[in-house]
């Protein structure tokens, strides 16, 4: 059973378009992190959200944590080729237990 479901699995868009990717669960998480991973490299943390309903912005990226802390979304405005990569969400649970990772959304932005 996959605790965190990410959708879509693959997304290919033109430069300049907007997109949203989703991270959903039936479980409540204490925190939700988003990472971006490029080929041959490890994931790099983009943001951590901890409060239900929280919205964080990082330049053209907007992250939202659901009110019930079961889901999250990542919205990219005016995508650029440099946004290409694998986007992973990871949920933190109480008790300092291991992060739970989704399988990721592979984004390709075409010039």
């Amino acid at each position, binding site marked *: 059973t996959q605790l965190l479901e990410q959708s879509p699995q693959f997304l290919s868009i033109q430069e300049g378009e907007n997109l949203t990717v989703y991270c959903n669960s039936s479980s409540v998480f204490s925190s939700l992190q988003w990472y971006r991973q490029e080929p041959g490299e490890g994931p790099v943390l983009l943001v951590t959200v901890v409060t239900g309903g929280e919205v964080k912005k990082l330049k053209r990226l907007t992250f939202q944590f659901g009110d019930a802390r079961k889901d999250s979304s990542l919205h990219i405005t005016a995508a650029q080729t440099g946004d290409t990569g694998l986007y*992973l969400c990871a949920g933190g649970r109480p008790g300092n237990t*291991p*992060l739970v990772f989704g*399988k990721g959304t592979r984004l390709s932005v075409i010039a």
Partner: protein
Amino acid sequence: GAGVSQSPSNKVTEKGKDVELRCDPISGHTALYWYRQSLGQGLEFLIYFQGNSAPDKSGLPSDRFSAERTGGSVSTLTIQRTQQEDSAVYLCASSLAGDRVIDTQYFGPGTRLTVL
């Protein structure tokens, strides 16, 4: 500054052989993590070291897998009698403290293991 480094970057081995993967965390980071990333899968937690506490080994898939962290710094992940299903990218990460809920984990580039 130096990030997390891993060696080797690629390892090809024959089924049944033992392999050792090395991780050098960021200096001063007390927590160290090992993950496995298989094709089309998310990151699978393997083991977690935090300071002098007993490691959390709950993610190790079998007793063929073990890991050590010597002197609170370098870590080695050992896989004995490798099987083809062990083929994956093995990622190491470190964090300044050990709060897995909110700490930033800094990942190394990974070791790609291929078992023939």
